[in-house]
């Protein structure tokens, strides 16, 4: 996919993200897609820190830090206020981590989605509470090591299917995104911007400290997640599925083996994960046919 990526930067240098942080790149791409007529609401997450402590600021668009569980409700309030004040152009973006989306933020997100509030909700998902030190969330995959699911008793349940959850709300646009495919991500963000109602974009974010991988592997791991079908890239527009980046025959082990959080997995575990990924991929393929 070829796309003109705007030269404008809405993310200043000097942010306080970790080296190799995928969440910083994701924000940079997303804002290039949305442009300057954007207001961002950020509930508690890594980005509460990355954005800079008072009196410093990282973003060159209006940003409001809000309470952990309120990303969607805050964005809905901002949108209503802008509209009643006569500004119908500005996009309101709620930007939350997996905790602020899958867990504590789910109720407000569900409320906004059911009302079809005109916001874009982006979940940058690093699959655990990374900002507080790698505790498991409901976005943490099966058998993953985290600081609250030690390697000898890793997480026992699968990752929550957030896309299916959002599909159940009948919102007009849902997509997955990856920092390894910025053109795909920016195209999706641009499409979301033009649609009225609640738009949900789920971005998988490699996290070097939390996933236990070297910081230079962020993009590689993000790409392997897509190619191995662990995290397929697709969109659902008015209920219609479309795969936007075709995966190849990469095995999930290629993705898993680069990450310390999966070091304790044995061959059987990896086979089970491969089988689950294959099953989920055929479901998505079937829906996209």
């Amino acid at each position, binding site marked *: 996919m070829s796309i003109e990526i705007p030269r404008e930067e809405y993310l200043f240098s000097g942010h306080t993200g970790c080296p190799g942080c995928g969440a910083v790149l994701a924000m940079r791409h997303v804002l290039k897609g949305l442009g300057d007529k954007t207001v961002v609401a950020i509930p508690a997450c890594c980005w509460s820190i990355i954005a800079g402590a008072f009196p410093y600021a990282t973003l060159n668009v209006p940003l409001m830090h809000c309470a952990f569980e309120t990303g969607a409700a805050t964005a809905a309030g901002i949108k209503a206020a802008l509209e*009643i004040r006569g500004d119908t152009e500005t996009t309101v973006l709620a930007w939350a981590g997996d905790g602020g989306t899958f867990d504590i933020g789910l109720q407000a997100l569900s409320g906004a989605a059911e009302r079809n509030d005109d916001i874009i909700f982006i979940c940058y998902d690093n699959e655990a509470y990374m900002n507080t030190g790698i505790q498991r969330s409901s976005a943490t995959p099966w058998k993953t090591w985290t600081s609250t699911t030690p390697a000898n008793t890793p997480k026992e349940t699968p990752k929550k299917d957030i896309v299916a959850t959002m599909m159940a709300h009948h919102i007009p646009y849902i997509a997955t995104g990856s920092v390894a495919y910025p053109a795909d991500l920016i195209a999706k963000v641009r499409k979301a911007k033009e649609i009225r109602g609640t738009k949900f974009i789920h971005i998988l974010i490699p996290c070097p400290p939390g996933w236990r991988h070297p910081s230079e592997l962020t993009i590689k791991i993000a790409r392997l997640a897509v190619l191995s079908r662990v995290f397929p890239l697709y969109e659902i527009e008015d209920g219609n599925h479309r795969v936007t980046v075709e995966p190849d025959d990469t095995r999930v082990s290629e993705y898993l083996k680069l990450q310390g959080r999966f070091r304790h997995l044995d061959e059987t575990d990896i086979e089970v994960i491969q089988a689950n990924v294959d099953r989920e991929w055929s479901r998505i393929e079937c829906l996209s046919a």
Partner: protein
Amino acid sequence: MKKVITGNHAVSYGAMLARAQVIAAYPITPQTTIVEHLADFTADGQLDARFINVESEHSAMAASVGASAAGARAFTASSSHGLALMHEMLHVAAGSRLPIVMANVNRALGTNWNLWADQTDSLSQRDTGWLQFYCESNQEALDTVIQAYRVSEQVLVPSMICLDAFFISHTAEIVDIPDKALVDSYLPECNLVYRLDPANPCTLYGVTSAEFYYEFRYKLHKAMEDAIRVAREADDEFREMFGRSYGLVEQYRMEDAELVLVTSGTAASTSRLVIDELRERGERVGMLRIRMFRPFPAEEIRNALRGAQRVAVMDRNMSPGQGGIMAQELRSALCNTPDRPPVYGFVVGLGGRDITTDVVHRVIEEALATDIPEDIIWMGVKV
């Protein structure tokens, strides 16, 4: 124009006349009819507002915070458990210095589950940084919503208007509905300097270290202190324009009073009858009604109580393990005053139990009969 309407309807008239622009609310008895009436005003074009029918009170306040941060005049209403669920967001709204106005219908907290009048819901939010006003009548509830926007938008601190469940919320009285144009001239358009504006990007409410946090709290407190003057001016100007005012506290027959009964909310109306009766008998009793509770108008209260021999506080609220909350505040305001009078803390009317004239008589009799008060005095406990 005069109408016979309930207190909840009066509050919705207040929000409509104040031209609330974003209303995010969640149903809870006995608040619900406030937002129902506002939905009607919006539907029939009397009010140009965006409604957000949120899925919880927590989101109601979150959406109000977002709306206010983007520069709109935000209104919501809640009660009891709804207010308790908002607790986190009350801190956020005040810390963010947003002039949101909320009506809270004072209702008891569970368990035991109870729908009736009790001020513990709002008084247990006293440290969140909201201005708090306790209303005695439907008219006052309407007028206070309008006054609150004026004060809040000047000092940048949110306001909570408190009204007793059912005694105000669901009781119809004659209410004078102010003229819309007159309200417009009393209450200028909401124009926040610091707001979410793509033409002037700024980051709001970021992480703040100990280097600056202390100063933010200091400024919030100073704004609260300033609110005493601003609220007094707003009330004075309201009197000039609308012919009514309420004061921060109301003094009733306080001249030469030896015993002062301190009340709030609708208990004041009942107390007024008892004070009249006792005055006719030549007893030197008066009443002080607390209308503004946050900021606590301590100086005005100290001045009002100068000369009083005894102070009897009727609290329709209770902090378990301590006692009536207004009594605590009174004691705290008086403790550094020489020759301070003893403060009798009566806990009455919890969970909507009637505060009748008989109860008020017994409160006064008990305060007159005892020289050294207990920390907490219960009336008519059936155990």
